[in-house]
Every structure is written in structure tokens, then in C-alpha cells.
């Protein structure tokens, strides 16, 4: 089981949190802080597994994370998950984000937290891995987005126009999480 999925940036700012077990909000923040402290002090060339998050889980739980450019993707899992499998899942998730947002960058996650959630929902459900095939995930997400669009119809047009205007002056921040850049050497789980 996956107990929690956390995405935060290099400064520990949460970009997405998803707990599959109830924690009160302040506890959640504490967990994020703790996890950030554990993860952030590690070099990029050390292993991606980490034990010893004291607030979440306990001895049976592990933190499995990946660091892409400005973002950390951390999964807290118990011993029933395969470590390498989860690493691969993170990769699938990020690649899916990349596909859905077209060159995903931190800004996409900042401004579209809800969409990231919807994508995540097609990958992991209630702490269990739902789908690992990226094409399938993307297809389902797109179908749902299409539904949303068709529902929006004319009535949503003015709002969309306004938000397009608002979006024009987004602060400029280097884009691209650049998954291609960091060559991740994970044994491939070829045929899912």
C-alpha cells in the first residue's frame, strides 16, 4: 500500500499532497516538513530509498522518491510494494504529467494542482496502484477533460476568456522539469 504521495519543490513548498490515511492538517504539514528535511539533504547520486520517517508509518514504511529538476516526488509505501516498481511508477507518473501538460514544469503543478490530482487518480487509487500503462492513463484523463469541455459549452466561455487574459502575465520562470535530461537508470519493467 502507498500511504502518502508528496510533491514539493527544492524549498519544501508543497505542490501536491495526497494522504491515503487520515492525518489532521497540522500533522500533514509536519510530515511534509520532516520528509523534506530527510530528502533534501541527500545528494542526487545516492539511492532513492529512505527509512526513518518517524511521523508516518514506522519501521514497515519506506520513503521512495525521485528528484526532477526543481521538484521532489515522494511516495511513502509499506513493504508490500516493490521498491523498484514504485520508482518506475513515479517515472510513469511524471512522464504522464509531461504528456498531459506538454513539457511539464513546476508552474504547471502550481497552477493546476487539481489537474495533477485528476491524473494521479488514474494512477493510484486509495493507496493502491491502479494503472501503470501510460497510454491508458492519458486516454482516460483526456476523455474526462473532453467531457468537462463539452459540459462547459457556451456558458463557460466568458470565464475562460477572462482567465486567458489573466494568464497572459504569468511570472516567467524557467520551464521544463526536463525528464529527458536526468538520465534515470531504472531497470525497465518492459511489458506492463
Amino acid at each position, binding site marked *: *500500500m502507498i500511504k502518502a504521495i508528496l510533491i514539493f519543490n527544492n524549498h519544501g513548498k*508543497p505542490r*501536491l*499532497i495526497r494522504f*491515503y490515511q*487520515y492525518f*489532521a*492538517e*497540522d500533522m*500533514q504539514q509536519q510530515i511534509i516538513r520532516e520528509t523534506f528535511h530527510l530528502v533534501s539533504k*541527500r*545528494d542526487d*547520486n*545516492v*539511492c532513492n*530509498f*529512505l*527509512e526513518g520517517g518517524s511521523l508516518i508509518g514506522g519501521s514497515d514504511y519506506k520513503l521512495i522518491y525521485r528528484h526532477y529538476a526543481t521538484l521532489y516526488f515522494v511516495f511513502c509505501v509499506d513493504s*508490500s510494494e*516493490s*521498491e*523498484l*516498481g514504485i520508482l518506475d511508477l513515479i517515472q510513469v507518473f511524471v512522464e504522464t504529467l509531461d504528456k498531459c501538460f506538454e513539457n511539464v514544469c513546476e508552474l504547471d503543478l502550481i*497552477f493546476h*494542482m*487539481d489537474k495533477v*490530482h*485528476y491524473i494521479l487518480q488514474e494512477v493510484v*487509487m*486509495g*493507496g*493502491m496502484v*491502479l*494503472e501503470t*500503462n501510460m*497510454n491508458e492513463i492519458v486516454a*482516460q484523463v483526456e*476523455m*474526462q477533460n473532453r*467531457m*468537462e469541455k463539452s*459540459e*462547459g459549452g457556451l*456558458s463557460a466561455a*466568458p*470565464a475562460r476568456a*477572462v*482567465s486567458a487574459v*489573466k*494568464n497572459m502575465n*504569468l*511570472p516567467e520562470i524557467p520551464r521544463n522539469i526536463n525528464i529527458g535530461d536526468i538520465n534515470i*537508470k*531504472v*531497470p*525497465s*519493467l*518492459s*511489458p*506492463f
Partner: protein
Amino acid sequence: MALKIVKGSIDRMFDKNLQDLVRGIRNHKEDEAKYISTCIDEIKQELKQDNIAVKANAVCKLTYLQMLGYDVSWAAFNIVEVMSSSKFTFKRIGYLAASQCFHEGTDVIMLTTNQIRKDLSSPNQYDTGVALTGLSCFVTPDLARDLANDIMTLMSHTKPYIRKKAVLIMYKVFLKYPESLRPAFPRLKEKLEDPDPGVQSAAVNVICELARRNPKNYLSLAPLFFKLMTSSTNNWVLIKIIKLFGALTPLEPRLGKKLIEPLTNLIHSTSAMSLLYECVNTVIAVLISLSSGMPNHSASIQLCVQKLRILIEDSDQNLKYLGLLAMSKILKTHPKSVQSHKDLILQCLDDKDESIRLRALDLLYGMVSKKNLMEIVKKLMLHVDKAEGTTYRDELLTKIIDICSQSNYQYITNFEWYISILVELTRLEGTRHGHLIASQMLDVAIRVKAIRGFAVAQMATLLDNAHLLTGNTQRNGICEVLYAAAWICGEFSEHLEDPKQTLEAMLRPKVATLPGHIQAVYVQNAAKLFATVLRSQESTPDTTAAQETSQLMIDRLPLFVQSANLEVQERASCILQLVKYIQKLQQKEVEVAEEVTALFAGELNPVAPKAQKKVPIPDGLDLDAWINEPPSESESEDEKPKAVFAKEEPKHTRSRHSEVDEKELARRREARKQEQANNPFYIKASPSSQKVYQDTPGVEHIPVVQIDLSVPLKVPGMPLSDQYLKMEEDRRQKEKDEKKKKEKKRKREKRARGRHVDSGPESEEDITPAHHVDIVTEEMPENALPSDEDEKDPNDPHKALDIDLDKPLTDSEKLPTRTHRSADVLKSPGGDGDGVSITGEPKKKTRKEKKEKKKAKDKERMRSAEDKKTKKKHKHDPEEEEANIHEVVTLVKADETQSTEPLPPSVSAGASDLDFWLTSDAAPSGIQEAVAATNTEMPTDADLGEVKDMEPEEMKSKHKKKKLKKEKEEMEKKKKKKRHHHHRSDRGEAESVQNGTMEEDDEEPLPPMSNYCLLAENAYVKMVYDIQGNLQDGSQVVVSIIFQNMSSSFLKSMEFNVLDSLNSKLQRPEGATPHDGLTVPFQLPPGVSNEARFVFSVQSIVMPQKLKGTLTFIVKSDDSSTHEKLDFKLHFTCTSYLITTPCYSDAYAKLLESGELKSSSLKLEGVTMPFHHLLARICFHHHFSVVERIDSCASMYSRSIQGHHVCLLVKTAAETVSIDAKCDELMLLENVLEEIKQTFSQS
């Protein structure tokens, strides 16, 4: 009203949406909190509006704020409102918010039950999907109970997308509502063989989670999983299954034997590291579970260790880490095979990665022997010095202590060395583990008598230099060691060289800064030291020294009397008064030393930590019985003497103060005694326990060899332990020489070592401890119970899921379905009690079953089957008929699943089958399959039904797709439909083709036609195919293949593969190599056919082509299963690249006039069929449409997927048909004509 809506939507434009909120927060970095609080106020306003869109927007923003740590539970009701919106967009927002912030304590959850039920049964699959996803995060016991049945129905949904979600969520439902597990389990098991890989993977996932916690209930599924393991190619599924087997093998060693071979094969064959790693892990689990007696046992271990070594040596840190992790599992049972890789592991200790160092540390635990302990610890001590982070250093510290103290200090040959290591460790600043070191010091000093002299000397030094330890801060954990030091110095003060000096050290004013509990020990032990000092001083003639000592005590103790800590205060004032009294006696020249020492006389024995728990209740002692006669009822109420022993104790506290009667005192005394017994530092009065102690080899009689070392330097801060290392080497050398001479003496030593004789695997006979240490065994009460079980956590939710799943379902276990209140009421009087008694019963049954032999089991099975029948009859009780029709349907459905379940003997007799499966080592494949086959019997039946159900569904969807694709022309549509009818016409539905343009009634009906032509066939399967161009993509064609099962066996795992040519390629999922086959997404029960489609990409379409391919599949009959294959040749005709496209005559004329087309012609002789048949054939087989027809002349048109125009002019005269054709690609045209010619020559 309408105006209001318009106004609302205009207002909405200026509301902040999520992006605005985020942007706002980013622009208000300095006063973020203030900005957010104004935003929350806005949100509250928005939530008050009627417009659901506004509300949804507000809820969306709240979800974001929740992530930032703001409690948004106050909006729970609004979230429910948004969830219940009919629009998917808003519903999704609502469910997302709910999944982020609802939990079991959220009270509005109970309002959602009906909404969720509605969404679950929504015709839109994404509504259902969103509801399932949300529910998986906030399901409560109530929701689980109310919705279990709805979700169970969804497990058989037609859409795999819903099926997989429904299967996954069942796990959450089971956790919250364990009663649903048994009724839902058969269906869950069915899903293990779902045609959709996603659903299958979900089912495996759920069962693995369940089985991990209660593996024994899932043993009977082992054959099924075994089959999946050997047939599945999905690595996710494989990993889960292999992990599951790892949990199952400890329960059934025979399973392990069966697994070794396929797992070893996988280890050799797989390229996926994750799979390899899990295989190794499970092999290890198997080997652990197997006692020796396995022929190639050591070979497997070697294989594992060897593979792990490869992982550890890999440059990828992740693999290194996992390798070490798995290695530590082998270590527990096969330490020797790991020990040979000591070099590698020590090397990992120097790794820059902390996680890896920690894992290597774990391994070290098993690497030590008497020979290398000192060496290894020395290395660790170096790391301790180097380590910067406190966590890693603390970890090192505990590991050092673990390694040294493991199995009762088995590997320590020189305790002086150990004590000095402990003393060195005290120099670590800021460690959390001071108490650990302290308890080791105490333990060693108490249990190793020979070391006390040395230990006391070291402790005295520690006390002398206490300022070094406490120097920095109060919270410095290391000061805990002073607790031990003070106690050891006090308790064993007779070993002190200069007790007076130590006493002074203990009474320094600085001590008052130590934590209270340590001060208390200081004070108490100062008194002990005082006694020792007095005795030594009184033996000398000079009495002033003794008086000075008393004065010292009297001077210093008042500091402690003023302590804020009660314990310190009490002890200090007690002792102060005592010393004052002593001083008075001394002044009268009375000898007091004897009496003062008597205060602290007696030896302390170590007591095992669990000793108290293990004391059995003696026969005849009833702890609940009254000791005295219970007081009569007439006594006044407020005394309530009953309560003294009863549970109402808390209530009684008020009166307790006032009346401490005899009984109360006795009780307290008892409690205190128990407390003391638990405390290893209390002397126990019980003579019996001392007897046990005396049974151990008499401590006093062990010859204690003189320690012939010079006393080590007592300079604090100097590493002492290193000296021992050298000394030890010298000593061993010396001993080796001596050994030869003193063979006799050695024997005696050996006996004296007592516990060491049965030491670890390494033979270390030749290393004798430096001093003869008796490790005093911890005391245990006599006839202590041997049980060593640790109780499981009673709060573990998985405990409730420990349910026997092989037993047939009882009626009472049916999941609650929606019923009208009236029916409910009617049922309850009888049903309620019934349900309770039945659910209670099964547990007993299972226990019985285990004891009884198979015969009895069979009988019981019969009986339960009979039960079922009678119960079925009950089903049609009049009360049931009151329920509405819908319920009846669901009830009957549930009944069906239940009644079919126990019928196949394999299911209810799962356990015996398992035995059969496991014991059949001789012919594993055959029998295993047999069992597997019987096991799948039931799912097969269900599958049959499902396939039938799905077929029309599929047809429908096909139609839909086509409709979307094609133009709206009526004629076109009709034709399409017809084609579908036609491939069915194989099965005898004769139907006439009516081409849109010629509906003349007088013409003869057309013979049945089918575009599906035979691809290949053998005894098992027949494949017919049709190729259609894809209008949307000019480079794609779709090959539809109907697979028909011709045999009486079950066909499964069909894989379709084609050798790609340069021009045409099978489209495979991303990541697949050109040699991978495609799995046919269904299985075929006997006699059933189904259609699958494969997409090919083509480059050039002007030439026909043939592609070779193979279909591989598994044929499974009742007693065997075989791999079969069927080769075929796919023929891509040029016609198949043509798409029926209508064309109007004027456009057609223009096209012909344009002059860009090249022409060709064809003559067919001896064609006897009517002209309209001829045209229909060309239309049907070659995808043309008729543009115009005049008597015996017709113009026809078609278009290729790449946009080539093909025009035909067909004329007939007296059995001769001439076709003039034009096309912009001559090659294509000629090939098409050739194909047309063939069509007519065949007929």
C-alpha cells in the same frame, strides 16, 4: 430566474478562480497569512451563493488551501453539495475535495450515501469512476456496509475501467466492513482471470494485500496463483504474486519446494531487475521456511547470494541498497553464506550514501565472531568519530551495542575491552542513547562478576570527570551514563580504590544541575559509599577521618534537600538525618560502621525482563475469590468495600484517602511487591527464586583467573579500547602455545564457560575468554510458562479480516441489499438472531474441520449443500415477495453466486485439493493443471455468460464508432450495417443485400456474402479476417479477426504476432519491441467465437502484400494444458486500402474530365450472374459505390486511404463484362482490377 442565472455567470467572471488564488498568494509573499484569510472570507461568501459553479470554484480553492495546511473541514457540507452536482466538472471537484479532507470523523459523510450510490450506478462511466476514487479515500464502516453490494455489482461492469476500480476499492470496503469479505470473495477470485490485464492486476493487488496480513486463509489460492505466475507476462502482477508467495511459504513448506524451480528459472531468465529482486527475496523466504532436506538447497542459496552480490556491486545505488537489504534476510538463517562476502559489506560501510551504510550495518550484526568482533567494532568506532550527522552516529552507537550484546554477549571475550568501549562511547555529544549505554554498563557490571573491579574503577573516573559529560546542556542525553556510574560505584563500592574521592565527586554542587532521577541515584549511592568509607576509616585508629567524612555529608546534603525534585528531596533529607545521627554516635566514640553497612547489605540478582508475566497462577488459586468474607449488604453505602477489588476503582479514589484499611494496605503491599519483582534491581525475598539461581553453576566456585594486565591508564579522553586489541592478539598467540601443554586445564575452562559451549556456527573453541566470566543467567520464576508469543496489536484492522474463505457461504452472510423498510421490519425478528448464531458457528466449524479427517469433511460438505437447498426454498417466502422487483433480482443474483459457489467440489474442498497439488511432486505439470482446471471451472461458467453478455454490447459499440466515423448519407449507413449482418451470415442468417441505389423489388435477392475470409484454422481454432482502411489515418488499416474455438477445451493466453515487413507494421503498445506479440484481450470457452482488432500501419498501398504471423495459445482441457500455435498469412489486398466513398455524378464527371487519371481495363468472360449481383459484389468485396446505373452499364467510385480516386465503368453484354477503369496511380489500379478478376473467377 433566467436573469438571475445570467447575472450570476457574469459575476462569476470576476470571482477568483484557483489560478488567481495561487497568483495572489505568490504576489503576497510578505503577508501571505493575511491575504489567505481575506481569500477565505471571499470563499465563504461564494459558498453562500446558489450558483453551483461558484460553489465548485470556491471548493476547488479550498482544496488548494488545504494543501497549504488550512483546515477546511468547516466547508464539508458545501463539498457534499458540489459532489451532488449533476455536472461531471463540478462533481469531480467535489469528490476531490472530499477525498482530501473527509475522514471517519466527518459527520456529513452520512449524508453522502445516497448520492454516492446514485453516482455508482450512473450511466456515465466517469461519474462512477470519480465516485469510486473519492470513496476509496473516505470510506467509513457505514458507507462500506451500505454500498458493499453496489460496488460488488460494479465488479462485473462491462467497462474494464470501472471493473478495475471496483475491484481495488473492495479492499477498503473489506477493511471497514469485514463481513463483506466472504460474500464478495468468489467474485474477486473470478477477477483474477479477467480478460482485461488492468482488472486482473487489480484483483491480484487486492488479494495480495489481504493475504499479506492473514496468509493462512489464502493458502488454497496457491495453485491459482501458481498458474498465474507461470503464465503471466505482466511484471507488476508477477511481482505481487511472488511477494505473496513469500508470505505464504512460511505456512506451507511444500509450497516452497514447488516454487523453487519456477522462481529459479525466472531469476535466470528475467531482465527486469525489480522482478529478479523479488524472486530472490521469495527464494530466500522459501529457503528460510524449508528445513534442510532439500537436495539443491545450497545451490539455491548460492544462486541468491551470488545474484545479490551482483546487485551490491552495481554502480546503481538503488540496487546496492536492495541487495544489502535482501542479504540481511539470508543472514538470519544462513549466516555462513553471507559471511564469505564480508569484504564487500565492510566496503559498503564506507559508502557515501547513508542508507547504504545503515543497511551494511545491519548485516554486520551477523558477521561478527569471537575472532573479529574487536576488529569490527574498532572500525565502527572510527566511523563514529567521522560521522557528522547525529542520526547516523546514533545508529552506529546502537549497532555497536547490539553487536556486542547479541545473544547474551556471546562474542565478547574480554569484558574489560567492552567496558572501555562503553566508556569511550560516552564521549559522544548530543546522542540520544545515553540510557542505552547506561543500561549496558549496569547489565555488564551486575551480570559479569569478574569485571566489577574494573568497571567500578572506570565508573569512578567517569564520575570524577562528570563535568565533561554534563558540560554543555541539560538535555544532553549522555548524562544518563552517570546514573549507571553512580549506581555501580555505590553498589560495588568495596572495589573502589579511593572511595572517599568518589564520594566527594558525587557530592559536588554541580551535581544539582543533573536531571532529578540521576540526582536521586547520586544521593542514595553517596550513602552507600559513605558506609564503605566509614568502614575503612574505622579500621584505622584515627577517628577524626571518619568524623570528617560525616561532616562532608552533612555539609553537602542540604543542597539536595532543597531540590525541587521530590525523590531527591526525600532521599536527601532521610540520609541527612541518618548521617546527623551517626555523627552524634561518632562523637560518643561508638563504632557505627558495621551497622551502617548493614543498611545496604545483600546481593542483587538480575531478573529476566518478562519474569513477572511468566509466573503461572498456581493451581487452586482463584484470583477473583474473596480473601475475606465479603462485607454484608447491610453496611452503609458509602464505604463500598466491594470496590476495593472491583473495577470501579477510579470512582473510589475519593474515599480511598480517608480509609486505608487493612485490606487496602495488603493490596498495596502486593502491588509494590509485583512492581519490585518487575524491577531487576530489587532483591527478591522469595526463597524459591533464589533456588533457581543456585541451580546455575555456582558462581563462587568458578575459578577466577588473576587478571595479569597492568591497570589501564585512567586518563579520561584517551582511547583505551585499542590497547585491548593488541593485548588480545598477544594473548591469543600465547594461549595457542600454552594450549598444547595444558590440554587438561582447558577442558576445565570449557566447562566453566557454561553458556558459551553452544555458541554460533563458527567453531571458536580455540579462543578462550580473557577472564573467566560467568554470565549470570537472568532469574526466571520456577515453572515459568515457555510461551514467547508477543500479542498482536489488537487495533490492527486486519485482524478482523482473518476469515476462513474456503467455507461455503451461509445465507446470513449475504451483503445487505437495498430493501424497503417494510421488508426489513418483517425480516428482523427471525433473521437477526439467526444471523448472529450462524456467524458465530462457522468459526467452530473450521476448527473442527481441521481436526477431522477428510471423510468427515465430505459429510459436512454434503450437509452444507443440503442446507443451501433448504435455505434456497426459504428464499421464496411471501415476505420476500413484498420487496420490489429490483430487489428480487439482486437477491436472486446474490443467491446464484452463492449457490454455485459450493457446488464445484474444488472450491469447498480447497484445502484437500491444495494438499493434492502440493504433494504431487512426481508429475507436477499434469496434476497441477488438473487442479487448476477444476479451480477455474466456476469462473469458466461465469465467463461464458459474460462473453455472451458482452457480445451484443460490443456490436453496439462498434456501430456507434462507425456512425461517428462515417458521413451522414443514408445509403452509406445502411451498407455498413449490412456488412455486419453479413459476417454473421456464416451462422445461417441469410439476408439480402440491398444496395442503396437499386432498391427495385423485382430483382432477385442476392446470395449471402461475407467479406471475412479464412485466415487459418486447425483443430482448436479458426480465424477469419477482414481488413478495413482507417479513414482518419491514411497510413492505417484495421484487421478484424474472428477467433472461433473449434475444440472442446478452453483457449486462453492467446497471443497474436506478425513478422513486420518494411512496408507494413503491426502497431504495438509503446515500449514493445517489434518481436513482441499482442495479447488477444479475451479467452475462448469451447464453441465460442469473438472478434479482436489489430491496427497495422502501412506506407505504400499500391501493392498487395502478405505478412506471416503466428497465433500462440494455451489449450486447457480438464486434464491437461498444452501450448499450441497456428501459423497464418495475412493478405493485404489493394482492395483493403479502398474505402467506400459516395460520389455524386457531377463530381464524378469532373474527375474523369480532369485528365489526371491513368486508365486500364479488364474483361471478364462467362459471367452468368445478374448485373445487379455483379455490382453488389464489386461494391461489397471491393469497397466501391455505384455512382450511376443505366441498364447494363454502371459507373462506380472508390477512394483509397491515401486519397487515390478509383473510377470504374462496368458494362455487360452476353456473359461478358468489360470494366474500364481510371485511377491516379496505375499500379494500384491494376492490382485492384486483378483482385476483381479473382473475385469473379472464384465464383
